[in-house]
């Protein structure tokens, strides 16, 4: 009887596995029926570029949520990294600028990790704190102006924001490459197994010899560094560092992770599914735009989707 139940559970799981993809296909189908402006090369290219920045943020968020945490600071980090990269670039060139942008993101992540693991602050509150703190720091650092105020960023960097490789925007190649590498890290390395175990049951992982505090802290560093990458990407697209950029990215990223079927309490989820979740969010926004839905109504719709995703998470994990 146990055996039969186990099998039934697996079959059900297999169907639930594919729900995000089914939802995305249905969403795309409905939108393309309602407007013929959706399935055009130009629009789909736009969707890809829009998705690419948020996808990088969401991949970092996936690490944190898999390990049982939460990171609200990523939106602010996107702005901070964009401004820091732009400023450093004006002084010391493209490579130094990019490195500075990513490094400062990783630094904020390390601070989050320290506060959560060593000071034992609830991740929601800890990263709410850094979210506000970092946003304030960006405005102070940039004097509330875009960076650079006058002059332009190096041409190579601007080319990256608009150029293409094999017919696809350079910006899109970043998450594609990250998707491959990070999926491998999570699925195939012992570090990846430790991340899943820490989120699945912190105590069981600890009693299996996993250094759970180090693992948890490392996921915040991933999240911060990847938000840094996203900040640099956004700066190259906006051709400047914008202190107001990246607002609500944390919410979109969290929603994408949950829409991708990851468990909010940790231990279950996949990077590629997060990407599916990102596309659900971006396609929904894009579709509503094409259908000329009022932007305030768009927010209402996206809010509903987030609540629905969280409710689905609850239903899925109710036993």
């Amino acid at each position, binding site marked *: *009887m*146990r055996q039969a*139940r186990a099998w039934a559970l697996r079959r059900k799981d297999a169907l639930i596995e594919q729900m995000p993809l089914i939802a995305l296909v249905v969403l795309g189908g409905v939108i393309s029926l309602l407007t013929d402006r959706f399935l055009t090369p130009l629009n789909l290219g736009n969707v890809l570029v829009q998705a690419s920045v948020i996808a990088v943020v969401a991949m970092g968020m996936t690490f944190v949520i898999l390990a049982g945490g939460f990171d609200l600071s990523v939106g602010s980090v996107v702005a901070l990294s964009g401004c820091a990269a732009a400023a450093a670039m004006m002084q010391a060139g493209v490579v130094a600028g990019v490195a500075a942008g990513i490094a400062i993101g990783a630094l904020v992540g390390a601070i989050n990790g320290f506060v959560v693991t060593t000071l034992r602050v609830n991740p929601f509150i800890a990263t709410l704190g850094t979210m506000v703190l970092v946003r304030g720091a960006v405005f102070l650092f940039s004097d509330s102006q875009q960076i650079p105020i006058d002059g332009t960023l190096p041409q190579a960097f601007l080319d990256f924001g608009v150029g293409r490789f094999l017919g696809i925007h350079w910006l899109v190649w970043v998450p594609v490459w990250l998707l491959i590498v990070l999926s491998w890290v999570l699925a195939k390395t012992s570090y990846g197994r430790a991340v899943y175990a820490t989120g699945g049951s912190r105590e069981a*992982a600890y*009693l*299996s010899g996993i250094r759970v505090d180090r693992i948890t802290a490392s996921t915040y560093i991933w999240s911060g560094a990847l938000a840094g990458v996203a900040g640099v990407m956004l700066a190259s697209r906006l051709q400047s560092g914008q202190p107001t950029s990246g607002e609500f990215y944390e919410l979109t990223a969290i929603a994408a992770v949950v829409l991708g079927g990851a468990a909010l309490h940790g*231990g279950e989820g996949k990077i590629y599914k997060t990407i599916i979740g990102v596309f659900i969010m971006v396609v929904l926004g894009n579709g509503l735009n094409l259908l000329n839905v009022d932007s305030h109504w768009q927010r209402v719709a996206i809010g509903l989707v987030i609540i629905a995703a969280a409710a689905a998470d609850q239903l899925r994990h109710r*036993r």
Partner: protein
Amino acid sequence: MTPVLAAENVSKRFLTIQALDRVSLSVHAGQVHAVVGENGAGKSTLIKLYCGIHRPDSGRILLEGREARFQSPADAFAAGIAVITQELHVVPALSVAENVMLGHLPRRAGIVDWRRTRALAREALARLHLSCNLDAPAGSLGFAERQSVAIARALSRSARALILDEPTAALEAREVQSLFGVIDRLKTQGVAVLYVSHRLEEVGRIADRCTVMRDGRVVAEFARGAFGVRDLVMHMTGRSLDLEHPESDRTPGETLLCDERDERLGVRERGIVGLAGLLGSGTTQLLRRVFGAEPGARLRLRGRSLAPLHPSEAIRAGIGMVPNERTLGLVLSHSVRDNIVLPNLGRFGAHWRMDERAIDRVVGELIETLDIRPRDPGVPVRALSGGNQQKVVLAKWLAGRVSVLLLDEPTQGIDVAAKTQLHRLIRQFAARGNGVLFASSELHEMLSLADGVIAMRDNAITARIDRGGGLTEAAVRDAMHGQS
């Protein structure tokens, strides 16, 4: 006489599984009716039908002769059927009095009447001959007392039928005795008690009637005095099972692990040492210390000193631990395979990439040798029965190169057949030249396995008694209570 609570030919099917097949079972006022069966026999499903979590596909649930159609446990509770489960629904932060009256606090003009709350709570507790501090937070109580609070709550709502699901799983012998006292008082007050337990000796002591279930059916029903443990096991498993414990033929060798400061805490090669102590005597803490999950251990393992400050250090030295709760030993949402790999990430992932082929081979072998069912490494652990889950915890350590196993209540809450299997595995592990240190609240079990017993009281070792040095149940009990 009409039974208080009855099931009449109830059947229940989940997907492909016939969980209950035309089961009839009735409990009379003032009677204790025990239900026994292996995991998956349908006991839990039956309880869920009685208390309104599920509804039968066919057949009826009767409360005092009238058909009951409960839509939820709240309905059943309001009608007088209370379930006391292992996860006690007591709110730790609230006072004992408030917990007893939870859900129907007496009110006056919309404001809680605390005087009456206390009076009613005291009355309910007095009916069970219990007196505890009404103002203490329930979180400060021990497990047994919380259980009493939950029972008192049911009484304060004039429950007519009480369903006790594995009530003694977490209790010490002395607490079991006081629970039986409480049950006796319930009987004299005409409450019908349905008693579900894995502990067959207890069933013989407490039950007026006993029903044995197997594969969703009632296979036998006995009246008091008409059955022994052997009969129950035979009907539960469908075959006779050798309950006798063979005398161990392992001759302990060199000292494997010992405490630098107290030589009584020592395990030899091929040795199995029991750790006996009442709840709160510090057996769990001692095991956790040896495992590095709590600081302070100063050990010697094969002559080398070891003071682990993190479980990973103990594991690297060759020590494994099976914790007292399976949620501490397993990531329930993850697969059997992932759980077995978890403490061995270093071994299988030495070169960055996990050696998936080696993992498949080792996991496959372990599933086979430990008889883990289903034989499927990909199935999430939460879908396994308690006994199989515990085998997975054991497999985690057998997959590595562990030479000392620490076991904390390894057979708690698992059925008889799985228990015998686990005992055999523990003996086999020791026979290969390894050492075992295990804590158990069942002295009978401990004496059948161990060559030596360490008794603990108030976080300190009080005695070490070895086989050949007067190892008897009475001697251990005396040492546990500090009368050596």
